[in-house]
């Protein structure tokens, strides 16, 4: 997961794009992971467990769970990963530039 996410963030750094995490690890663990694995995107810290308030509000029961929003905040894709994620983001970026 991390290499793909890292390269996506790097590739799109000058585009109207953001990768936002919602993390379910204990805080110490998250800090460690960010440092050691080069996590280059911001995450909400969801209270330290998979039962945190954000995951609960979004009915998340499997990890990872992905939502892709367009520039108006509308949900357009769910659970796309790897190349499918790249394609979805590309398509939505075209809409911003229109």
């Amino acid at each position: 997961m991390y290499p793909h996410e890292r390269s996506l963030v790097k590739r799109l750094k000058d585009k109207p794009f953001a990768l936002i995490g919602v993390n379910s690890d204990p805080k110490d663990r998250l800090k460690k992971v960010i440092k050691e694995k080069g996590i280059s995107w911001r995450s909400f810290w969801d209270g330290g467990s998979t039962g945190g308030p954000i995951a609960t509000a979004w009915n998340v029961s499997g990890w990872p769970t992905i939502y892709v929003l367009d520039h108006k905040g509308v949900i357009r894709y769910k659970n796309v990963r790897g190349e499918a994620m790249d394609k979805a983001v590309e398509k939505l970026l075209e809409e911003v530039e229109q």
Partner: protein
Amino acid sequence: MKRWACTLLLLGGAVSLAWGEEKPAPDKGSDSEAQLAKELDQLLRDHEKAYAEWLDKLRATKNAQERQKLFGENPTSKFASKVLSLAKRAPASAPGKKALLRVTQLTRTGPAADEALALMVKHHAKSEEMGDIALGARYGFGPKTESLLRTLIEESPHDSVKGKATFALATYLFRKDRNGKGSEEAEKLFDAVVKKYADIELGRGRTLGKSAKGALTEIRLLGIGKVAPDIEGEDVDGTKFKLSDYRGKVVVIDFWGDW
């Protein structure tokens, strides 16, 4: 389902059929039932032991190749077939029911699961234990899943079974077709769960009502085409921020954990 697992199940099924023919004819009365119960408990203990040993071996593997080889040695499907054979000696009895239930917990698809399910429906359709079968079915019990659940909803005399089957059918349909028609019927069924069966317990502090409400949130607020609800929270440094801060950008929200 992986090919090697299918082969294992088929082999297990074939062997258990052969064994079945050699057993003495099923008997009268509580003596043979007590005997069956004893043998079942021993068999379940044997399985626990074999499974724990297999898990230990799995933890000790050093690479993907070793792991792959060990996956083929999972003892569970062999035991599922043995438990099924036991059950078939007296499927209508109490230990028979216990054995059939166990088979459906050990294996979800394949000949052993299908047979155990059919026997449960034949001999124990009105029993309260069908609720657990229903819950297990929400991830799919093969092609008969939907009809089984609809039958239970209609015919079970127990509210707990009706509730669990309604919830399971909703979950099954929603998972099958998360962004299409599946979620239309799922929404109606989850609504029925919240209205009629909310307090039925799912274990681990969850109730049917709680889980159904979560699913309804996802269907109603988090479907494709819906404006995402805002998120307000803190990052790892304690700095507050919101999802809506990023309006105007394409956003990927990634629920993740490092494990």
